[in-house]
Structure formats: C-alpha cells, structure tokens
C-alpha cells in the first residue's frame, strides 16, 4: 500500500513536470474544447423563444459545467498506445514491474492539474459575458459532482484503453475510438441537455454509458441532480464491464504482440 502511494506520487510529479514544460500547448488544448461554448450560444438564443423547458440562465450554467467536465475527462491514450505498439516501443515498458497502463493513467491525471488554471480562466471570461448566470454549486452537490467527474474520467479512460488494445491486432485501432467519439459527442449531453432530447431517445440513451460521462456530472454541478444513486450505479457497472474486457484483451494481446524485441 505504502509502495503504491509512493509510485503514484513519483509518477504524478514526473508527469506534471512534463506537462508544465509545454504550457503554451496546453492553452491551445483547452481552447480546442470550445464546442460546448459554441452550443451554449445557440441554445441561449433558442431559449429566448420560450419554446424549450429551460431558461437561458440554466443553459449558460449547464454548458459552462459541460465545458469544465469535458476539460477534466479528455483522454488520448489510444493514440499513444497505438504508436507504442506499432513502433514496438511497448517492449521496454513490459519489462518494468508495473503495468504500462498506470504510466498513461498518471500522465492523464497530472495533465488535469496543469490544465486547471486555464480552464477556470475561460469559464471566468464567459461569466463576464453572462454575469446573470454566475452560480455556486451547493456543497453536497459539489462533492458528488467532483466524485462523478473522477469516475467519468476513469470510465472514459478505461473505455479508450480497452479500444486501444485492439492495436495488437490491427494498425487502425483509433478508428474504433473515432466511431465511439461520435456517439459520445452526440449522446453524452454535449450538444444539448438530455432533458431536451425526445423522450424515446432519452430512455435508450440512459442505458448507454455516454450520458454519465458529461450530462450526469454537469447536472450535479449546476445543482440539478437527477437519479444520483442510479447514475453512480450505472458508472460502476459500465466500469466493471470494461475492466473485465480490458484485462481479458490485455492477456490475449500480449500473446499476440510481436513488436520489435518481443
């Protein structure tokens, strides 16, 4: 246990140092996640027609929360893993007495801390544009929201890492992620809060993992929690499923792996 903590601390500080080295690059990554903010403009304008159930204020809050959640759950492990397998760079890491997944995991986590200040700055900027929407999450919602963000990040990481393992068999594993990302974009609540979806679509979507990655944590943050227990349960179940699949594919994949030096 103590050893695990030590490994975690060392890895976090190492990768944090890496990330801070390219601060300018980080700013650009933050700015490239502006999609929710663009949709915020559209929905605020649309809500003024009174034809939707939500008010402009609620929508501003919702999309700012979406923007934040999205910033904390960005995952890119598949691109790195795919390259490592194709170029054979995975081999040296297999010799280390720690699963290579953890390296990727901690590099993502430490990037979150490096990204935080810029993301907060951008949210502040938009609150200047819409001062009437400023809000504070209630304490219990904040705690639950943060927990949901952490879980959402873990689930998204786990899903992408599972797809990444397809790289053992094909050179285009990232195509899987591209397809999955489409579903994620349109079903997670990034284009609109789920309450604005047609009822039938919403019922189906709630069975998929996507709404729990964005919509669920975002609604907690704006003090509009919905079926909290059910949401956390769904995340657990999906995580367990992908965890099982991931470990199975990992064992099979290592036998298949024939990179340089393996």
């Amino acid at each position: 246990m103590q050893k695990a903590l030590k490994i975690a601390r060392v890895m976090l500080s190492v990768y944090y140092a890496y990330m801070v080295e390219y601060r300018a690059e980080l700013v650009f990554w933050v700015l490239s996640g502006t999609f929710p903010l663009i949709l915020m403009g559209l929905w605020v304008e649309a809500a003024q027609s009174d034809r939707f159930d939500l008010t402009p204020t609620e929508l501003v809050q919702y999309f700012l929360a979406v923007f934040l959640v999205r910033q904390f759950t960005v995952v890119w492990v598949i691109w790195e893993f795919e390259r490592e397998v194709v170029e054979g760079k995975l081999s040296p890491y297999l010799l280390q007495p720690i699963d290579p997944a953890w390296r990727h995991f901690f590099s993502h986590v430490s990037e979150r801390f490096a990204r935080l200040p810029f993301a907060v700055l951008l949210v502040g900027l938009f609150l200047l544009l819409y001062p009437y929407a400023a809000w504070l999450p209630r304490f219990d919602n904040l705690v639950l929201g943060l927990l949901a963000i952490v879980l959402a990040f873990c689930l998204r990481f786990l899903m992408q890492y599972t797809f990444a393992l397809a790289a053992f068999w094909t050179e285009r594993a990232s195509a899987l992620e591209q397809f999955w990302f489409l579903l994620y974009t349109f079903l997670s609540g990034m284009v609109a809060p789920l309450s604005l979806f047609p009822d039938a679509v919403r019922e189906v979507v709630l069975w998929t993992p996507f709404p729990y990655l964005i919509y669920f944590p975002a609604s907690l943050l704006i003090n509009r929690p919905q079926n909290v227990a059910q949401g956390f349960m769904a995340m657990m179940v999906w995580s367990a499923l992908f965890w099982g699949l991931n470990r199975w594919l990992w064992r099979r994949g290592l036998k298949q792996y024939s990179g340089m030096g393996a």
Partner: protein
Amino acid sequence: MKRYLKVLGLFWSTAIAAELEYRLNFIVTALISLGGLAGSLFGLSLFYRTGYEFEGWSWEAALLVLGLFTVLQGFSATVLIPNLNKIVTQVQEGTLDFVLLKPISSQFWLSTRIISPWGLPDVLFGLVMIGYGGSRLGLGWADYALALLPLIFGAVTLYSLWFMLGATSIWFVKIYNVTEVLRGLLEAGRFPIAAYPVAYRVFFTFVVPVAFLTTVPAQAMLSQGGRWWLLASALLAAALMLMANRIWRFALRFYTSASS
C-alpha cells in the same frame, strides 16, 4: 503555370496510388462519415423539434448550411489536413530544407503534395444533403451555381487561415494543436450565423470568419445574401490568400534549419 499543373498531376497520382493500398480504410472512413452525418442531423433536429426556427432559416435552409459544412469538412480532410498539418513535422525534423531547395514555390509544394481520398465520403454526403434540402425548397441548377463562387471563396479563406497557422510553426515548432483550435471554432459553421447571439455573430464574422464559409454560400443559394456579401467574401479570400503568402515568406527568414 503549365509546369505546376504537371507537378500537381504527379503529386496526386502518386499520393492516391499510395493511399489505395489501404482500401479497407475507405469503408471505415465512410462509416465514420455516415455516423457523423446522423449525429449532426440529430443535433440540428433538437432545435427544430419544438417548432423553434433559427431566425429566418427553415429546417430545409438549415440543412443547406449543414450540407455546405460537410462538404468543406470533406475538402479539409482531402487537401488541408494531410498537407498543412505536416508543416510542423517538416520544421521539427529539418526536412523543410529539401522542400526549399526544390525549384518550385515552397508554399505550393507544402499545400498540394498529398491528396487523401478519405474526405470524399463527406463531400458526397454533404452534396446529398444540399440536394435534399434544395429540392424541398425548389431550388434549380441556377441557384446552386450561384453558391459556387462564394463556396470557392470560402474554401480559399479556409485554406489561407489554416496555412497561416501552419506557417507559425517556424517560430513555435510545437504548434500542432493551433489547427485544432481553429477546427474547434469552425464547428460553429454547422449552423447559420443568424442562430447565434450578437456577440457570437460579431466574433464569427470579423474575428474567425466562419460566416463566410457556410452561411454566405447558403444565402447565395437562396438568393438572399445580396451582392455585398459576395463582394466581401471575395475580398476576404483575396486578402487572406495574399497575407498567407506574405507571412510564409516572412516566416522563412526566421527558419534556421536543423543543420545550418
């Protein structure tokens, strides 16, 4: 001029021959385009579901904008992304030297070296969407032809912006994600500019000219835009093209290759 056309022919035939080695890729990209299309339509339908309309844009007219956006997306996947995103690598690895030594314009070489057919499904689906929306609105060939010119201006504008950002890699080297920022902002072009609040409209017309990429051609198709928008769009394209060339030449003065 003739020499450039010949070189272009050679570039593209070799590039296509190389890409066709991965035929399965075509099915994969076509599937992804189709998924993207379904998603965009779903997103747009969420607005129109309750009878709300973007100011002055019926569902069919909004489809025209989405179709034009998809076409431009295909264009950038075919020509812009494979070429301009490589400038960074060229600078990083010092292989830009070899390009500069060649007896043709380096901007031409960098912008046209590769063509990737994987953007074609997007172009095709975009055209289908425009055709569907257009036929519902009773548009004729003459109307589509009116949109051609502003669409070309839009494509030139897009190229110039992208190239200018690519050129800044001479100074900043690790700039790969600047083009990602641009791509993120361009997503705004999925919807007619009238759908945004005023502040957004100003931003997407004068700061990042997204309005000229999709809304202006769609308006031309609907015979709504008027001459001034066409003129503005032509001027913008010309100015940005000129600027891209100037910035590239200026940037090259600061290029210190890997060895010299």
